[in-house]
């Protein structure tokens, strides 16, 4: 019971938060509620007024019959007071006709009203009469309506229509919500192998059909992406063999031309470039496939940073690298090669696009709900047009040394996504590009 209440409460607060009038649930609820309440109320009012008039007619007839009986008994006994008696003691004014005659016994000057209630009466003496009794004026219409609106029945109608409104909209909206949550998971977790909830896709109605269609679409996209990756990977692999031969052939040419022949140096350099490009494509496609191949391991973050800093010192001895981990003993449990690769690519990017004198900082700290790793350079930063495209494949910054292939940052982002985290880039207010990696707290090794 409490669980139901809690769910209701959370549902309500969620509904109120997100512009409740925009939500399908409340729209449907309102429409269903209005239609059913209005419909049921009018039926109720119509029926109750019908029942009412029949009832009043019956009461009127009973009263009139009693009075007419009394009057006619006296009339037949030739009691001259019969009329007066009738007039004094009874409010009802009756027109009494002997059966088959148009001449009333009653000496009223006016004729009975056309809509008067008519019934037949047989006295004990056996004579038959026809009695006309005018209907009394009805009460004010609005009064009666108000009386009915505040009746118990009306309350019941409201409760029933509210419940049916809630039930119907929940029936339609809940599966839609499930489906949309599912689709969100699909693209957020980048895992196209996810399929809709069984209960949803087993439904035989339109919603079940919709969810099955979604599943089929996801399957199609998954295979299409897989094929694309496979093709890319196969092509890269196939390119490696001729490239390896080309390099050896270039080496042979070098042996003949001499070591410092500019032509052979040039050939070698281009070979290296091709080689690097192929390696990056292979790495990129491999990361697209889940897992990246490595198992999660526990490691010390400071140690990782030290290794990265050593690599930087190796490549650019002039570059100053600051590394800080807070708390210093932070240990993580994740696929280390992926994180290392992401950081390495980020660093690589900085080394390539910033002057050697620009310092590099790499910090890790614990935030409220994430492990945050920030990599910041003190270079010129990235132009605002390029910034949103930074993680797209084959996007290259101008002013680089022309050695990149535009894959490094996409690979970094892929790697971090594989780890269940996020990678963002922005220009630091004090200058330089800052990459922010956020990893879920679950990667912390206790």
């Amino acid at each position, binding site marked *: 019971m409490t669980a139901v209440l809690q769910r209701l409460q959370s549902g309500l607060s969620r509904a109120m938060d997100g512009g409740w009038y925009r939500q399908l649930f409340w729209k449907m609820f309102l429409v269903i509620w209005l239609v059913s309440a209005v419909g049921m109320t009018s039926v109720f009012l119509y029926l109750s007024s019908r029942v009412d008039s029949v009832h009043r007619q019956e009461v009127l007839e009973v009263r009139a019959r009693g009075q007419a009986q009394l009057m006619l008994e006296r009339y037949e006994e030739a009691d001259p007071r019969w009329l007066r008696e009738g007039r004094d003691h009874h409010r009802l004014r009756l027109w009494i006709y002997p059966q088959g005659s148009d001449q009333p016994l009653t000496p009223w000057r006016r004729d009975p009203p056309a809509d008067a209630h008519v019934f037949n009466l047989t006295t004990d003496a056996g004579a038959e009469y026809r009695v006309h009794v005018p209907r009394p004026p009805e009460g004010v219409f609005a009064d009666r309506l108000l009386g009915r609106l505040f009746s118990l029945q009306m309350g019941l109608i409201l409760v029933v229509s509210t419940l049916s409104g809630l039930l119907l909209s929940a029936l339609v909206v809940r599966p839609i919500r499930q489906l949309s949550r599912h689709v969100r998971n699909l693209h957020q977790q980048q895992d196209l192998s996810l399929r809709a909830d069984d209960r949803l896709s087993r439904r035989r109605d339109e919603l079940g059909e919709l969810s099955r269609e979604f599943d089929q679409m996801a399957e199609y996209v998954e295979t299409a992406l897989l094929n694309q990756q496979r093709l890319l990977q196969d092509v890269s*692999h196939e390119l*490696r*063999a001729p*490239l*390896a*031969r*080309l*390099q*050896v*052939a270039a*080496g*042979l040419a*070098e*042996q003949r031309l001499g070591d410092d022949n500019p032509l052979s140096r040039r050939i*070698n350099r281009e*070979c*290296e470039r091709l*080689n690097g490009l*192929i*390696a990056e494509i*292979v*790495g990129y496609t*491999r990361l697209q496939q889940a897992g990246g*191949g*490595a198992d999660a391991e526990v490691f010390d973050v*400071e*140690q990782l940073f*030290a290794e990265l*800093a*050593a*690599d930087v010192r*190796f*490549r650019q001895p002039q570059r100053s690298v600051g590394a800080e981990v807070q708390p210093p003993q932070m240990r993580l449990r994740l696929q280390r*090669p992926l994180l290392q690769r992401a950081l*390495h690519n980020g660093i690589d990017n900085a080394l390539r696009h910033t002057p050697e004198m620009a310092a590099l900082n790499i910090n890790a700290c614990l935030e409220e709900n994430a492990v945050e790793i920030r990599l910041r350079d003190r270079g010129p930063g990235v132009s605002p047009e390029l910034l949103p495209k930074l993680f797209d494949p084959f996007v290259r910054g101008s002013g680089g040394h022309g050695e990149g292939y535009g894959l490094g940052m996409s690979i970094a982002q892929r790697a971090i996504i594989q780890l269940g985290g996020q990678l963002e880039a922005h220009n630091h207010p004090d200058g330089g590009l800052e990459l922010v990696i956020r990893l879920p707290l679950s990667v912390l090794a206790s």
Partner: protein
Amino acid sequence: MQSKQILLVDDDVELCELLADYLRHEGFEPESVHNAEAALARLAQGVPDLMVLDIMMPGQSGLELLQQMRPRFKLPVIMLTGRGDDIDRIVGLEMGADDYLAKPCNPRELLARIRAVLRRSQGGGAPGSMPQHVLLLQGISLDPGLREVRINDEPLELTSTEFNLLALLMQNAGQVLSKELLTERVLHRKLTAYDRAMDVHVSRIRQKLATAVGEECDLIKTVRGQGYQFVREER
């Protein structure tokens, strides 16, 4: 001096021909086979001075070949791995390959590695880098003459690279040796960027020591950002 025999094991026939040409020009005596079975058959006829082994071969992979031949043939092996296949590299080194090179590679680099590996497998190290007498530290005895390591009188199986590395570390026990120095003295080449070969060798030795001692082994310490150190006995 007799020219060195080099066995190229790679399924790419044309590449083997080109490489053989290249190495012949540099004064080696290359020979090529194109699958693991042929390599084993060739080894059975006589062991060459060095083997260059491609990890990615159809059928039996280079790693399987390495595993099969290791107990019988003790020749130095340089393996060629796909670029970015860190796992292959580490597994290969753990299975006793002496060095690795990403393929495709510049033949000049391959040549340098071949020379380095040959130098270290013959001399057992640069002059003066090998201790002259038996070292005894923390219950580990290392005999440079017999090239044998014993823990509590039980012999410990080490590859030649691992032996040289352990000898260097034990000889300089208490001192921190940088990765640069270790790579130069043990692998006879310069440390390159993102070079993890030394780390793999060290972790391999640690594992072997741990299995031999039967408990966690912290005799070789990692000094962050500096290198490795063999812990000196506390007195």
